[in-house]
Structures are given as C-alpha cells and as structure tokens.
C-alpha cells in the first residue's frame, strides 16, 4: 500500500506539464546523441547541465536522466543501420543487428530493440520500486568506514571490468583522486594545489573535466582521423517482429533484463558491462550459438534489454546511498549537488517528490521513447547523414558555452581545453577516462570518510576489517585486484608446457 502511495506521488510529479516537457526534451536529446556517433550521453549531459540551472531540481534530474536512457535507445539505431555504436552500451547490438539489416531484416531488429528496451526499462523501474526502500533502511547503518570501503569497491569493479589493463585503469583512478584533492581541504580549510588561482579554491569543476575528456578529446580524434560514415541503404519495413521473433526473443529479453538490472546496481557496473555480459550469457545458453554474429535476433534482444535495465538499476546506488556507480551517475550527482540536493539515504525522506518523481518519469520517458523511436526511425536515419564537418564546430561551441556558463569563468574553459588534451592523449594510449572521472567525483567523499574513520579508530586500519559490511566490500575489492595477477603468475608454467609440447 505504501508503495502505491509513493507511486501515486511519483506520477503526480512526473505528469505535471513542465516535468513532462523536460522528460520529453531529455529523451529526445538522448535519442539524438545516441544516434550521432561521437557524442555520448555523458558529453550531452555535461553540455546541458548549465541549462538546467534555471529549472527545478526535479525537472533538471528528469531531463538529465532522460538523456541517459534515451541514448540507450538511440544508440541501437546506429548499431543496426551503420554498424557504428552511437554509444558504448550499443557495441554488442552491432554484432547481430547489422547482420540482420544486411539480410533485409532491419525493421524487426529495430523493433525488437525498441520493444525490448521498453520492456526492460519497465521491469527496471519495478525493480527500483522494490529495492530502493529496503536499501535505504540498510544504508542508514552505514558509517564512514562502510562508505569508504564501498567506494573503494566501486572503483575496483570499474577498473576491473572496463579496461584491458587494470594497472593503467588504476593509474587513471589515482590521477582522478589527485585531481579531486585540488581546492580547499574539506576538514582543515587549507588550499591545496590551487597555485593562487582563486577559481581553483572550489576545486576543479566536474563539467569542464567531463566536457574536456569526453567532448573536446573526441572532436580532436575525429579531426585527426577524419571519420567517414556510410549509412546502410535499405528499406526499413515491418518494424513489428514476427511471432517467431518474439518466441526466440522472450527468454533473452527476460534474462537480459534481470542480469542488466543487477549489474547496473553494482558499484562500477553499468549499461556497457551489462550488454557485454548478457550477450555472452545468451550465446552460452543458446541452442544455436553458431548463429550469433550472423544475424541472431537473440543477440539484439538480450544486450538491448540489459543496457536499458542497467540504466535504471544504476540510479539505485546514487539515489539511496549517494554513491554514483558510473560516470553518468557522477554527472547526476554533480547536478543534484548544484541544485542543493544531497543524494543518500535521507533523500527519500527529505525529497520524496524528487525521488519518486524521477522514478515515475522514467516510465513515462520509456513510453515516449517507444513512440519516438519506432514511427520516427526515418528521421533518425536522416540525421546520420549530417556531415561531421558541420557537426564538430557545433559540438565545440556547445562545450565552450557549457564550460563558461557555469561560473562565467574563462578559467573553466581553459580547464576544459587542458582536459581535452589530456583526454586525447589518454585515448591515444588506450587509457580509460571512466575510472579517472569516477575517482575524481568520489575522491573528496572517500578522503573525508577515510580521515573520519582513522580519527575514530585512533589511526588503526582494523576499523575497515572489523565491521562486516566494510570488510566484505574490501575483501571483494582485494579479490578483484588479485584476480588479474593469476594468469600472470601462471604464465611461466604455461610457457614451459608450450616448450615441452614443441
């Protein structure tokens, strides 16, 4: 009954005309950035964050969330029609979606992708409703050691899952921690690494950093490489999947949804990992694994369902614990803080309208996306034909205005350009930006929690291992750190075996 009351509150907020408008705007922009390769949801959210300063926190978060899950929908269109993932979570959809398009089945591929996304998004919201309240009650038991350990676990999971080289991903996370220390010390008020620049006293802003790392760096790479996009010219007809398509897809949709949702909740997890794992699981459980990669509809249904339910699940740690599980959630954390809302266990009690309004808006947004993505597919395909030479000056201008308008400061624009160069070099060297950004956001919170814990325990690190929740998180984190070393340790033996065989 209580849940129904919350749901009623949520829908009464989400269905207000102004919130409906921002929800529509969010999913529209999300679909747009999902469709256009080179501009992901993170860059779009950072570009539009300053534009939300004049709106209410609820409308602002509704719009930014819409961009995120809207991009999940839009990303599949480019994957299927152009074989270029509009954003990272759609990479797996390319494998079978593009093959289906080549076989003249672009319609059913786009259809199952949209319906599957809607289905998964809906189930994801139900999951949010059921899990959020128990998790909030659980989170109220958290003290500084638990928060510190949970954040360490989040960073470890992200570095473990997102990079080929865990060592380098950890290096980027350390760099993020260092950048996070710039500004006034939270406890003593001492200025750190500010070099007498007054604008740095508040620390380096999240928006210039993210815009630089994801927006400017992407433009720099594209200028250098001069990408060419070829749209697959096929008539898109019959968007409704056949009965046989549904029969083959229902299992993958269900499995992808459940798997994606829980991987989304996991600190450091998210839509990208969910889509990879669900594809691998489907291939393993399928009776026809040989069809994967050659146009199997299961290979479209599962990752699309997984990335959408993961997008919903990722909101849970942010809204209930105040801990962002990925870069997009870090952006939302920044937006909430700018609007004077502190996410965490008390959010539900202090701002129930925001919490339930955002949850309900996702349902409304998912319905809007279904309408936007199926009948208007032709329009999105046309957008793919916009030449990059026209697109990139606009991206640059969005970044420049976005970075400037937060504090009306040219220093922020310079910071963005510097991080643009850093991001470009990182991409050149295949270094991941995600661990850096997450560590940068979590860094100040981690530092406070670490120092509070050590003061409380009189300098003993045992406080992290004697409390069950903290100990569990740290043990998992340590296990994740040790796991990649195992093949390395085994390698001399393996080499020996190889030599003996030879």
């Amino acid at each position, binding site marked *: 009954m209580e849940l129904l009351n919350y749901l009623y509150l949520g829908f009464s907020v989400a269905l207000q005309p102004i919130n409906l408008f921002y929800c529509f705007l969010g999913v529209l922009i999300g679909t747009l950035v999902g469709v256009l390769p080179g501009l992901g949801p993170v860059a779009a959210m950072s570009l539009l964050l300053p534009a939300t300063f*004049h709106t209410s926190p609820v409308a602002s978060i509704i719009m930014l969330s819409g961009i995120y899950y809207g991009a999940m929908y839009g990303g599949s269109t480019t994957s299927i029609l152009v074989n270029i993932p509009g954003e990272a979570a759609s990479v797996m959809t390319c494998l079978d979606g593009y093959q289906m398009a080549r076989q003249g089945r672009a319609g059913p591929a786009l259809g199952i992708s949209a319906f599957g996304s809607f289905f998964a998004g809906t189930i994801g919201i139900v999951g949010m409703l059921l899990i959020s309240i128990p998790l909030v009650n659980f989170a109220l038991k958290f003290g500084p050691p638990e928060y510190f350990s949970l954040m360490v676990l989040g960073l470890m999971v992200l570095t473990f899952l997102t990079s080929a080289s865990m060592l380098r991903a950890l290096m980027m996370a*350390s760099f993020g921690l260092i950048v996070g220390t710039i500004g006034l010390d939270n406890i003593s008020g001492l200025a750190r690494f500010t070099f007498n620049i007054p604008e740095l006293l508040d620390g380096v802003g999240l928006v210039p950093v993210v815009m630089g790392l994801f927006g400017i760096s992407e*433009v*720099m790479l594209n200028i250098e490489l001069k990408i060419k996009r070829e749209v697959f010219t096929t008539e898109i007809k019959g968007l409704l999947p056949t009965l046989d398509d549904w029969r083959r897809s229902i299992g993958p949709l269900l499995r992808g949804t459940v798997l994606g949702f829980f991987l989304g909740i996991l600190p450091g997890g998210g839509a990208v990992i969910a889509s990879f794992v669900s594809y691998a699981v489907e291939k393993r459980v399928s009776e026809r694994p040989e069809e994967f990669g050659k146009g199997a509809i299961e290979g479209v249904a599962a990752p699309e369902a997984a990335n959408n339910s993961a997008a919903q699940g990722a909101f849970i740690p942010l809204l209930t614990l105040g801990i962002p599980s990925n870069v997009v959630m870090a952006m939302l954390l920044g937006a909430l803080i700018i609007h004077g809302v502190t996410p965490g266990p008390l959010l539900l009690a202090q701002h129930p309208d925001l919490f339930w309004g955002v949850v309900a808006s996702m349902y409304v947004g998912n319905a809007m996306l279904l309408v936007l993505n199926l009948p208007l597919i032709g329009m999105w395909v046309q957008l793919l034909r916009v030449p990059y030479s026209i697109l990139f000056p606009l991206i640059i201008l969005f970044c420049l205005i976005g970075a400037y308008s937060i504090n009306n400061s040219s220093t922020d624009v310079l910071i963005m350009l510097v991080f643009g160069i850093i991001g470009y070099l990182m991409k050149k060297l295949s270094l991941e930006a995600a661990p850096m950004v997450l560590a940068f956001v979590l860094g100040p919170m981690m530092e406070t929690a670490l*120092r509070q814990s050590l003061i409380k325990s009189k*300098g003993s690190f045992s406080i992290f291992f004697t409390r069950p929740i903290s100990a569990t998180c740290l043990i998992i984190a340590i296990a994740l750190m040790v796991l990649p070393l195992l093949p390395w340790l085994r390698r001399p033996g393996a080499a020996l075996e190889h030599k003996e065989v030879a």
Partner: protein
Amino acid sequence: MKKTYLIHDIVWIGFAFLVCLGGLKLGFGSFKQPQAGFMPFLSGLLLGLLALADLISGVAGRWKHEKTDREIWPSIHRGKLFFTLALLFIYTLLFNTLGFIIATIPLLFFLYRLMEPRPWWVALIASVVTTGLFYLGFKVGLDSQLPPGILGF
C-alpha cells in the same frame, strides 16, 4: 620497447613525485590525525608505484601487444589538430574582452572551413547564423551569462 609508453610512465612517475612532495608540504599529519596533505600524498604514492609497475612490466617485455608508436601517432591531419587547438586557446583568451558574438563568428568561420573546402562566403554565412542561433538559444532563451564584450550585449 615502445617509446611512447616509456615516456608516458616516466611522466606519470615525475608527476606523482611532485604530488607527493606537495602533499608533504601541505602536511601529512599522522594516521591518528591525518592532515590536508594526507590524501594527496597517498594518491601520489599510489600513482607513482603503479606507473613504476607498468614501466617494469614494459621493460620485462609485456608491451608486445600494445599499439606501436606509428599506430598511436599516425601523421594524418595533425596540422588541422594543432590549428584547432591554437584557435580554441586564442578564443578562450579573447572571449571575455571581445564578447561572445565578435569572438565566435571568426572561430566558427575557421572551423567550418577546416574539414572541407567550402567557399568563404558560405562559411561566413553559416558562422553568423550559427552564432546568432546560439546567442538566441543560450542568452535569450536560457538566460545564460555570455560575455557582452565590446558590443555591450
């Protein structure tokens, strides 16, 4: 041994060393009473050790599968890249003084002509129209603060 990765690790080690020094200068405190330099020192130390481990693994021949220096730095369109960066830095420096409209039109003019050879008048019209639309959208529509500069609006 790949030169780019070698330089990359050495730069990180040097940077980490400077951060550690900065942390000590700010005051490490003790584990009982950590001070402002505590976190920077630990983060710098961690970064330095990780970069050192990466360097050692490279020396031990574990960079075999990494991209080659030529793959990392293909020499295509590098001039365009430097030109764009220089434009952006100049724009940032002049943005406040000249104002949004006066500074943005030439920036867009050069950017529009950078990737494809367009007639100058097409690029100019596109730059003026784009700047106008952005001004209307952000300044008038969203009430964003854009520098008025010499035009005064």
